């Protein structure tokens, strides 16, 4: 393949993407399972107990990566949505559609684990702090995008309308990220940063980063799987259903 022309745009066609996604899913899924198991093991059994918070802090290994993913996935979804609007490309909209539920799931997970962490450390399940509130808004945004899409019957309009909504909501992502710096909040500031030395033990950082990559792999695997469903659902055309050997489509014929 070295230097020869390889047409990447080939995979911008749903018909070509469907089998590719099918081949990629097992790899990403296996990587996700492996990394998450390792990350949880290091986090729960090897990482040292925190001096001030005891063992309660260990939820961090799920909470922080989930919160990161909730924001990352939103931005990625918005990028796909923007690409879809700009290039008028259906597969981009499909990607945005496929990412949204996973993003909503991670947002919920971040909020849920956060409240589990908040109870022992702050003494409350929920506080109306800037970061919690903005993360909650993010969840509402994900839900709004999913609801808007599902309440429009015309696919083309559903794609484009939810893309506009996704792009409008991007403004919330920097607000979440910087909320702990802009406002004096109960939520602690970032413990991990690229530029500064981490304020935690090395094993903790390792476990968190492993979990992070694991969540990435999970997101990719699930998004690809959902993408396949979306493709089958939308491209219900007998012309290529058989070639792509999708049982549903072949039967629906």
């Amino acid at each position: 393949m070295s230097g020869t022309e390889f047409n990447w745009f080939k995979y911008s066609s749903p018909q070509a993407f469907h089998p590719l996604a099918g081949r990629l899913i097992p790899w990403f899924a296996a990587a996700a399972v492996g990394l998450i198991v390792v990350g949880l093991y290091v986090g729960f059994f090897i990482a040292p107990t925190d001096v001030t918070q005891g063992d309660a802090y260990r939820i961090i290994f799920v909470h922080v990566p989930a919160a990161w993913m909730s924001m990352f996935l939103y931005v990625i979804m918005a990028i796909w949505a923007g690409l879809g609007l700009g290039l008028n490309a259906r597969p981009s909209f499909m990607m945005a559609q496929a990412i949204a539920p996973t993003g909503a799931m991670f947002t919920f997970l971040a909020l849920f684990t956060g409240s589990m962490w908040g109870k022992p450390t702050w003494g409350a399940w929920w506080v109306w702090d800037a970061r919690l509130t903005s993360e909650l808004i993010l969840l509402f945004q994900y839900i709004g995008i999913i609801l808007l899409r599902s309440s429009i019957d015309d696919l083309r309009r559903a794609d484009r309308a939810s893309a506009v909504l996704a792009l409008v909501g991007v403004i919330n992502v920097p607000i979440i990220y910087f909320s702990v710096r802009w406002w004096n909040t109960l939520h602690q500031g970032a413990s991990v940063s690229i530029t500064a030395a981490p304020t935690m033990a090395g094993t903790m950082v390792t476990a968190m980063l492993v979990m992070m990559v694991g969540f990435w792999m999970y997101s990719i695997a699930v998004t690809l799987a959902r993408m396949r469903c979306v493709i089958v659902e939308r491209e219900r055309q007998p012309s290529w259903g058989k070639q792509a050997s999708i049982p549903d489509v072949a039967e629906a014929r």
Partner: protein
Amino acid sequence: MSQPSMSEALRGVIRRDLLLAMRRRSDVAMSVFFVVIVASLFPLGVGPEPAVLKVIASGVLWVTALLACLLSLGRLFTADYLDGVLEQMLLIPQPLAVLVVGKVFAHWVISGLPVVLLSPLLGLQFGLTGDSLGVLTLSLLLGTPTLSMIGAIGAALTLGLRGSGLLVALLVLPLFIPVLIFGASAVTNSLAGIGSEANLSLLGACFLLSLAFAPWATAVALRIALD
């Protein structure tokens, strides 16, 4: 025949929408009475303790303003959508975003401005006095146009959908939250004697930001809806 300039088009849209509203004054009266009634429900529900009312005043009045804006969003584009005027607007050579600014401004004059003008009175009902009354009015004056701007995006996205009234609430309310927070805490801070300049500045910033982006997003959404 020379084309009307952009500002002429803007003025034309504003004049038309205001005129239409004046022909149907009951619509305007409805949002005013809605605000009055909702705001009056809280002292009845929470109890008439002056200390409590003073604390919740800013939040209650702001949420009321939010709901009033939300409920009137249906009127923003629907009538024009149904009788085909909106399609004609899409064909006008002037940028659609400019016409959207005109429509949103008219919408604010009809549904937001009455709330702003009424707010000192409502504030008195809740026991606010002096400075905090002024801050409440000022915060609503700065904040309600932003609400109309953001609301227009939601109204355009849900144009002509079934159950659009509920859907627009779900889409738009999360985006209203920052305005609500800054507006309500401006009043709370002035009550606490901290000074409300920071929050008022943030409200102003929100307004400028929404003025820059919302009409454009609304125009895109309208084109999608009428595609």
